[in-house]
């Protein structure tokens, strides 16, 4: 599988309220998932799967930084993201920001997300989105991606190969 043709670029705010860009994390591998905290099916499944994959990989601290970028910035403030992730998916750092910067990040990562009415949601809407997970190498280059259909074991195996035994130019 070739590297995804994305630009791994963003200019957002993390769930501690700090301004971050892709350069903030240089030197670490980034595991990037887009979603929204009110998502009832796709995100909980994806975040649980990725957490399980990372648990199995058990990387040294700082080697892999899992990021969860919201596609619903109106609801997903830094505080909402932090509360949600710390409670359920503590490996992840949430990123949010003004809608136009979220749009830029979506474009850069080729992420599709679009708000639509959802009568089952307390606020009356959902934001269906692409559920691809991206891996970005320590130099900020796209390295790999996993569609939603990959399971945790596959992801762990790929991470072991790519992150724990990377080719020299990916370190």
């Amino acid at each position, binding site marked *: 599988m070739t590297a995804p043709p994305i630009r791994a670029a963003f200019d957002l705010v993390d769930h501690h309220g700090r301004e971050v860009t892709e350069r903030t994390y240089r030197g670490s591998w980034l595991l990037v998932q887009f979603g929204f905290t009110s998502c009832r099916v796709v995100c909980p499944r994806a975040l649980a799967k990725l957490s399980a994959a990372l648990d199995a990989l058990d990387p040294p601290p700082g080697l892999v930084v899992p990021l969860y970028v919201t596609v619903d910035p109106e609801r997903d403030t830094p505080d909402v993201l932090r509360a949600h992730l710390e409670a359920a998916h503590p490996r992840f750092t949430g990123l949010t920001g003004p809608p136009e910067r979220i749009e830029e990040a979506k474009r850069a990562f080729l992420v599709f997300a679009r708000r*639509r009415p959802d009568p089952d949601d307390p606020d009356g809407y959902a934001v269906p989105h692409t559920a*691809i997970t991206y891996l970005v190498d320590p130099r900020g280059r796209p390295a790999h991606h996993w569609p*939603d*259909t990959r399971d945790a074991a596959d992801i762990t195996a790929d991470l072991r190969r790519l992150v724990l035994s990377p080719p020299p130019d990916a370190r």
Partner: protein
Amino acid sequence: MRQLDREQSGHLRHWDELSRRQPNDWSLMQGKGTGQDDFGGYRFQLAYMVYGLALTHRHRLPAAPGLFRPMMQRLIDKLLLPEVWMYWRDVSRGGSVFNAHLADRLGEEWDPVVRDNIMYSAYVQSCALLHDHLFADDRYARPGSLTFRHWSFFWGGGEKRFAYDRDSLTEHLYWQMVRNGYVGIACEPNCVFQICNQPAILGFRLHDLLTGGTRADDVVAGYERAWAEFGRLDAGGHYNMMLAEDSRAVRPNEAPSPWVDAWCGTLMNTWNRDFVRENYPRQVADFLVPGPDGTLSVRSAPARQVMGQPVVTDTCDTGWVAAWASEMGDRATLDGLLAHADRFMAPTWRDGALHYPRNDTPADACGHRTEIEPMTGNVLLGYARLNVADGLWGLYNEPWSAAHHAEPALVEVDRDVEVSRAEVVDGVLHARLRRETAVPGDGAVTIGRVPAGARLLLGGTELDAPAVDGGVVVRVPDGPAVDLALVP
């Protein structure tokens, strides 16, 4: 025993003849539409000849790669001709009722596969991959093997050249799917048709078979999830035709038009067989008109009026319903449709080739449908005759293994040799061959992958045929068809 009948051989001969036309000789292939922007365009005729050849090779004449391979290559060469894809330079600018509001944002695009236009790009992709899969070849993996180029002495400045291959094109289409949330890639700007994304899924599957990976499964899973929001079927139980990318408005098959259901059902059977089969009997019943002596014809929807203009297009309704019935294994419907075509649509034989010529007259004096488009008369009726039940499903789900490509086979077939049987049964290559004297050729076939010590029988008589480069050349005698056997 799998053997072609006279009509099936006639369709193959016609496709062979069309594939051999000089560049830009499109005689017999011109439809009602203008500028190659409708459903009768050359791209569809060329692509579905390739699909029909693939189905025939896979299911009926598996031991005759030499018959199919050059024909598929010639058709793919034609698919790359600018006359086939230059409509995109204009269509990319928008201006239809579905994207008129976007016209200010859309510009002229020369590269015919770089954005939207899945109604062309997916056929280039899937045809190239069918070729490479069926012949265990890397012909279209070579960089630039799928290049779109145009240059005119008379206008336009320098050469336009857009180089792709089966891998780069597949990758490009895959990431367009991702970017669109897997709902599909548009045909005309803003218009995502269910139909036209199915060939890309077949292409992803073939690419996975050739190179590894799970693109097809990924895309199908995403496609299912994306369309769950809209529904595959409309309120009337017919396939939703298209989705407007920006407004997310779904356009149902409102008339309903036979081609929408038939084309979509035919192709979607590759990966969604149970669903397609469950809905087929009810859907097809809405379109069939009983005729004399068990014949069946197809009732087209009335031509639409849009912006005060009649929409002129080749619907290809008859052909698509026949193709659909063939994929569903609905022999009674298929036989009825073919009987109607043979009785009312002027089957025409020329030098051993069979087609049904274009006729724009809706019906004869007794009301029997006579209207037929080049896509139906050149391609789809032949496709339907040559297909088998679940033919596309088999291409998708039951690929050939490496063992197939090690078996003896007719690896070269001269133009004037008709092959009506070519299969390996219990290790023995069986073929039935006939010399067609109406066309030029040397009347020979070459058998490749011949086991050491194999005996060759022609018409029951053992031959001592000359070997060339590991193959054996056999001259086919004039006269009736003869049986060939290569016994290990």
